[in-house]
């Protein structure tokens, strides 16, 4: 195989191969240099993001770019294809049918025969029609978009650097600030979590209390603890809120304001869920004897939810203020109750929508708990002590749409005589026919009962005998 320029004796072939070689080396050099340029641009981006100075990274990058150009040029020249390889490229690019490569390979034959000489002439004749500069143009690599992208990012980074300085130190500073802020906020977060836990505990406590006992307590006059008596802040807030709501609703009833209107912004769910409650409320406007009991029933859920809200506020306040506030807890609760008394029920709902929404939710839950049996009473299904009763049985509207959720199975006499259906079961119970199934006899004709043969093998055998060929 020829590999040096001196082996080529024909000037046309030499010139053409030389042009191809220069173009191939140039394209290879451009590709390698752009690869290095991409790396240098990436390094330059990192340097500009870190360093304060703009001049130093650019000077270093320019020097490295120049060195990379020289190094890649040397690399591309020393890794250039051989003359035979160049001839193959020329054959493929010009569709010459391997004429040039064959001619190059047999060019140094010591005594070429007639057909080799003819082949050489044929190759040169076809080579004369080829324009190597058109076939092998100097072009930028196809992945040049990477370089353009990096240059665009570099330009943007330079503009940012000139305006605001290096971005990475700024990010570090912001990160340090955010850590300090998180250190300050974390006690508040813990206090909020504590308040939520208290609320959950109180909710479960209220749900377990007897309803009649609560009604009795609601009819009793509220007794505020004496000022200065050391009590729990949560209890004080709950009692204050209960007193506040009872006073507000009584005042609304005495002023002739319909109870449903005053409570409608707060309790739309309650009216929709329990129409009997709204009816009793309307009736209370006409019958003063029933007014007190209706108001008591309606305000119980409100008082409970308000107590939860006050308890949360008290818990937060108790976290932030330590022992000194415990000594003045009664005074603070009195002040809170006084502040709450100044607000009517409707105004309170309008000014504090969160509390109103919470009260609404609580009331609707409370009404549902009254209408439907508590799930806790039936979660013990399976212990066999009490029969489970479906929810639909308590709601006559839903009873018609439900289906039986269980069927009693009569297990006695389950195994009957072989070959006989089980017919001694009662009406409405499940019937499971039991019958012994004996294997049926199958008549086998020649070649018919071979379903166990894999279909592919059957197809193969069939094809072999029908269209067998090598």
């Amino acid at each position, binding site marked *: 195989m020829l590999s040096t320029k001196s082996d080529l004796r024909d000037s046309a072939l030499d010139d053409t191969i030389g042009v191809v070689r220069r173009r191939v080396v140039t394209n290879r050099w451009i590709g390698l240099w752009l690869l290095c340029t991409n790396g240098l641009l990436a390094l330059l981006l990192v340097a500009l993001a870190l360093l304060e100075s703009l001049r130093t990274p650019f000077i270093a990058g320019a020097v490295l770019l120049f060195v990379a150009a020289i190094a890649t040029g040397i690399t591309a020249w020393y890794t250039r294809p051989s003359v035979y390889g160049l001839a193959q490229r020329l054959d493929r690019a010009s569709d010459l049918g391997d*004429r040039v490569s*064959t001619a190059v390979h047999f060019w140094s034959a010591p005594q070429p*025969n*007639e*057909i080799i000489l003819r*082949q050489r002439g044929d190759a040169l004749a076809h080579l004369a029609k080829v324009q190597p500069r058109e076939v092998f143009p100097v072009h930028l690599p196809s992945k040049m978009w990477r370089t353009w992208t990096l240059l665009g990012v570099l330009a943007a980074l330079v503009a940012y650097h000139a305006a605001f300085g290096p971005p990475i130190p700024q990010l570090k500073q912001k990160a340090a600030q955010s850590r300090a802020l998180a250190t300050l906020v974390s006690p508040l977060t813990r206090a909020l979590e504590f308040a939520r836990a208290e609320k959950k505990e109180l909710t479960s406590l209220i749900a377990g209390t007897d309803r009649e006992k609560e009604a009795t307590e609601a009819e009793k006059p509220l007794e505020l603890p004496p000022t200065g008596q050391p009590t729990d802040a949560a209890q004080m807030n709950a009692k204050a809120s209960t007193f506040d709501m009872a006073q507000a609703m009584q005042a609304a009833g005495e002023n002739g304001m319909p109870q449903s209107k005053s409570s409608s912004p707060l309790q739309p769910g309650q009216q929709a869920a329990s129409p009997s409650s709204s009816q009793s409320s309307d009736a209370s406007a006409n019958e003063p004897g029933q007014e007190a009991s209706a108001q008591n029933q309606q305000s119980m859920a409100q008082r409970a939810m308000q107590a939860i809200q006050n308890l949360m506020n008290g818990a937060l306040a108790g976290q932030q203020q330590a022992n000194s506030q415990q000594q003045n807890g009664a005074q603070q609760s009195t002040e809170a109750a006084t502040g709450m008394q100044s607000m009517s029920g409707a105004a309170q709902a309008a000014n504090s929508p969160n509390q109103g929404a919470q009260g609404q939710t609580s009331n609707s839950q409370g009404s549902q708990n009254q209408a439907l049996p508590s799930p806790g009473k039936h979660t013990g299904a399976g212990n066999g002590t009490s029969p489970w009763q479906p929810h639909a049985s308590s709601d006559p509207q839903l009873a018609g749409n439900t289906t039986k959720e269980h069927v009693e199975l009569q297990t006695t006499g389950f195994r009957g005589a072989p070959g006989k259906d089980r017919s001694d079961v009662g009406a409405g119970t499940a019937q499971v026919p039991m019958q012994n199934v004996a294997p049926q006899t199958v008549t086998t004709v020649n070649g018919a009962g071979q379903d166990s043969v894999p279909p592919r093998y059957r197809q*193969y055998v069939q094809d072999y005998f029908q*269209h*067998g060929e090598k």
Partner: protein
Amino acid sequence: MGPETKKAATAGPEIEAVAETVSRVRAEISKAIVGQSEVVEGVLIALMAGGHVLLEGVPGLGKTMLVRTLAQTLALKYSRIQFTPDLMPADVIGTTVIHENGDGGKMLRFQPGPLFANLLLADEINRTTPKTQSALLEAMQEKQVTVGGVTHPLDEPFLVIATQNPLEMEGTYPLPEAQLDRFLFKLRVPFPQRAELNEILDRTTQTNEVVVHAVLNGHEIMNLRQIVRSVPVAPHVQDYVVQLVLATHPESAPNSAAAKYIRYGSSPRGAQTLILGGKVRALLEGRYNVSIEDVQALLLAALRHRIILNFEAHADGRTADDLLEEIASKVRKN
């Protein structure tokens, strides 16, 4: 002027005349055969490369007529053997008979069979028994037959063109692999196109009779074979042929289609066929060197009968042709 120069000078006009001679043969054959250009080219390449051809096609496509027309065009001694299940080897290669000379003495003399011809048409070769089929083995490869301990050389050029029907497999004996490998090409004779069929009807249902002239003789064919063998092949083309043949072997690439569907790959005769056929095709194309395109053009005809497919290939409906195309698409052309 040295001997090499003399040889080159004498071979010069013949080299230039190769493409012209072959084109004249084509023109004569096309008088009788409509279409089937690939089959005709394959037969001519095999003739100039010194190989044998196995034609496969349904009856009525002109296989026998092609061979008879070729024999008329080449002015060669032509014989035909219709292979049947009861055909014996002696019916093919000949036998020794008692001959009485003029003195009244008797002697054993070899009576040559129809095998002693330049162009042998072995019609429906897969209908005879393997015993008779194997009688062709020595003749096809060694160009000689041995009867009664005496070896009889065959006349050159010797070309066997065998035909077989791919549809009827009842009562046939598929050719053994050893005999299949002795065929240079296995050519599939396609059904003619619409225009070609119209042309066939015009030619064969009217009164005009086709007259084919001989444009080439046996001596010229032998000269052409010498010229063909002197066509240069570049190293990367030869290496491409080697890669192709190796790629047909299952153990060459464990995860390839060859490993999955081929039981045995091509023999070295496949590589020889690709190079020799490529040389002839290059000359027919007016080129003096073998190119990769020549190899690719002859790949199916040269290797489709040299690879043995396994059960998986038959079950999955894979053929040798599509496997070879898949292999060729994955072999790097350097």
